[in-house]
């Protein structure tokens, strides 16, 4: 395998507080060395004025294959991931058939290997059939390669099932990832429950629906000692509940979907279904609280929230259209624009939340770091140069995003996966 020399970049490795201009050397699929002196190489990447960091790991990518290939395939999702600077993604089993058998886990792994774009860590279902009633065969699923468990966009509403899942999964050292929402409080909700939903007559998703479930899940994690990750939080209440739990020493992590950085519930005044997200774009006070949670470390992870949906599905009326946007290719740009350039996070903290923390949550000891011997998963990106989003250029099979024409700061230029250069200008 080729020896690669990434030259003269600003190397940021938050796993050991490294942030300086230097060289990274890759050999045989692993990080060989970091140092100022030149070394021999087969291939040289000039990273002048670029940031070089451990490859991004996404904890929320809906692959949609098998079952909803009209939205996305494993091939197209992983291509989009690499284009966006991700070297690994965790697959969210949102499509039917559910990922609740050994065969279904192995199918995803197999398709990912065949596509050969980036690593895919398969998240299997917590419950059989993703029905929220009985535990899936977690032991067998782990044997097939499952990296963790989630019922995707269906919250684990049954408290007893959640308790059992947190207890049982401990045996296999795998996390439970939940979307913390009380379904009966959200009912047919399509947007944040607030003044805008009141004026527009749209059914709302009250912040309390998230706060209540966040509180429940944390109590259950405390009681069971299980590993809990709250995939996408969005309310000031749940940020505060997570903050207090961490202060009490409870093992819990929380993520924010970069899609929720797009704006507030005011956007839904356009009635554009591409602003219909789950969790919804909330009012400014909630967004501010989430950003404060990112800044003080309460929110550990920034995920893409990638939820591709075919155009004809998003053409429906707002009440009927599915939630979500494609975001693998715009996550870095949103983080750069809305968080780093806006002064809320420095790049080291952003990289921590997009690589180091996700690696820890999935227990990936060889990833999320540029230490010698780690997997050579590396993202090189331009932190400053503005670029304009064009849905026509996206690698994702779907183009459901309101960001077409937006100017963002932060775009991957080189992506190295397992020592192989998968993306270059």
């Amino acid at each position, binding site marked *: 395998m080729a020896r690669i020399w990434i030259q003269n970049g600003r190397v940021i490795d938050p796993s050991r507080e490294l942030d300086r201009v230097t060289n990274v050397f890759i050999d045989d699929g692993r990080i060989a060395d970091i140092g100022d002196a030149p070394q021999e190489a087969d291939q040289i990447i000039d990273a002048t004025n670029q940031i070089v960091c451990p490859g991004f790991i996404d904890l929320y990518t809906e692959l949609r294959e098998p079952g909803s290939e009209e939205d996305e395939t494993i091939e197209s999702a992983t291509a989009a991931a690499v284009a966006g600077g991700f070297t690994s993604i965790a697959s969210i089993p949102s499509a039917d058939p559910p990922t609740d058998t050994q065969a279904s886990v192995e199918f995803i792994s197999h398709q990912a290997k065949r596509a050969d774009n980036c690593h895919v860590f398969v998240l299997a279902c917590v419950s059989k059939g993703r029905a929220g009633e009985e535990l899936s065969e977690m032991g067998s699923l782990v044997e097939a390669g499952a990296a963790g468990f989630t019922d995707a966009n269906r919250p684990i509403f049954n408290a007893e099932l959640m308790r059992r899942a947190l207890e049982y999964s401990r045996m296999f050292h795998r996390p439970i990832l939940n979307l913390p929402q009380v379904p009966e409080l959200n009912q*047919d909700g399509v947007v944040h429950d607030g*003044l805008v939903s*009141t*004026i527009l007559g749209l059914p709302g998703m009250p912040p309390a629906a998230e706060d209540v479930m966040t509180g429940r899940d944390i109590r259950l994690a405390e009681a069971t000692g299980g590993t809990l990750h709250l995939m996408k939080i969005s309310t000031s209440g749940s940020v505060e509940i997570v903050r207090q739990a961490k202060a009490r020493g409870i093992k819990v992590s929380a993520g924010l979907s970069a899609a929720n950085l797009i704006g507030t519930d005011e956007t839904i005044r356009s009635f554009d279904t591409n602003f219909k997200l789950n969790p919804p774009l909330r009012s400014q006070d909630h967004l501010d609280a989430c950003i404060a949670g990112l800044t003080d470390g309460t929110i550990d992870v920034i995920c893409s929230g990638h939820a591709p949906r075919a155009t004809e599905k998003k053409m429906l009326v*707002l009440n*009927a259209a599915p939630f979500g946007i494609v975001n693998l290719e715009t996550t870095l740009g949103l983080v750069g624009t809305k968080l780093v350039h806006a002064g809320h996070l420095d790049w080291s903290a952003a990289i921590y939340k997009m690589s180091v923390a996700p690696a820890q949550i999935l227990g990936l000891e060889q990833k999320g770091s540029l230490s010698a011997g780690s997997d050579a998963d590396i993202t090189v990106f331009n932190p400053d140069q503005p670029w304009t989003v064009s849905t026509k250029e996206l690698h994702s099979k779907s183009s459901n995003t309101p960001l077409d024409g937006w100017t963002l700061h932060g775009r991957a230029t080189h992506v190295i996966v397992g020592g192989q250069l998968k993306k270059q200008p």
Partner: protein
Amino acid sequence: MQEEINTLAKPDSWNRRYLIDLESLTADEITTLLDTADQFRELTNECRMKLPVLQGKTVANLFFENSTRTRTSFSLAARRLGADTVDFTASGSSLSKGESFIDTAKNIEAMNVDAVVVRHRAPGTPHVLTKTLDTAVVNAGDGPHEHPTQGLLDILTIRQKLGRIDGLTVALVGDIAHSRTARSNIWGLKKLGAHVIVCGPATLVTDRWEEIGVEVAHNLDEILPRCDVLNLLRIQFERQNTRPFPSVREYALLYAMTPDRLARSKDNIVIMAPGPINRGVEVTTEVADGSHSVILDQVTNGLAVRMAALWLVTQ
């Protein structure tokens, strides 16, 4: 007659091809709509014949949700103006019927229509059509969002009965949460200077309305003596997921307009209901059919308002 028709010139204060909501209209625009409606009502009353100002034009009624009175009113308004009408109705009890609404609308537009009147159970549908179609668009009710012609006809009726809107206290009573009529009334009345009260059970009347300058009340008897107008909104059982009050009986006890409550109101109070009314729930039969009730005036004004709306958006 011909002379009077010739005096109908598009007012300078109107430059829109759409009537989607009252929220985005100015007070001048709302007044223009009301004045035009008055003009049409007088002309039709006097002549009892058609005003062929839209001769040769076609108005399409796209009703993705069941409606009898609004659809009839729009059809009649279009025909009174000399327009041809096309009716498209889909029983809109399930959203699946509305899934291809953009395609349906584009199909109808391809038949060379000049204006589309649309009703849909999903908020925002008319707004989306203005982005998709080249024709004029009039909202005939989009879910609980707005029903601008209903708001206008209510306001027109108040103006006829009390001579003004500015300075009046108008209470909207009942299911504010699910009422498009309430929203259109709120915006229109506020813009014209009325004090608006929304009154009903706390499960159907959120305090958030205060944020836009509307008074929120849950006790009808307390506000009653201050009200110049009561607009009694229908309880929309069909839009409610869980029943927001324990029983119809309890609702009627707290909010029904009864002869007893009428006796404690201002002498010249105007009682309105957008219909169809649930007799015995929002209003007793005695009050609905009594001398303070203007329910049938509302229907007559509805026709005039819809004529005005169709004429203005197609000029």
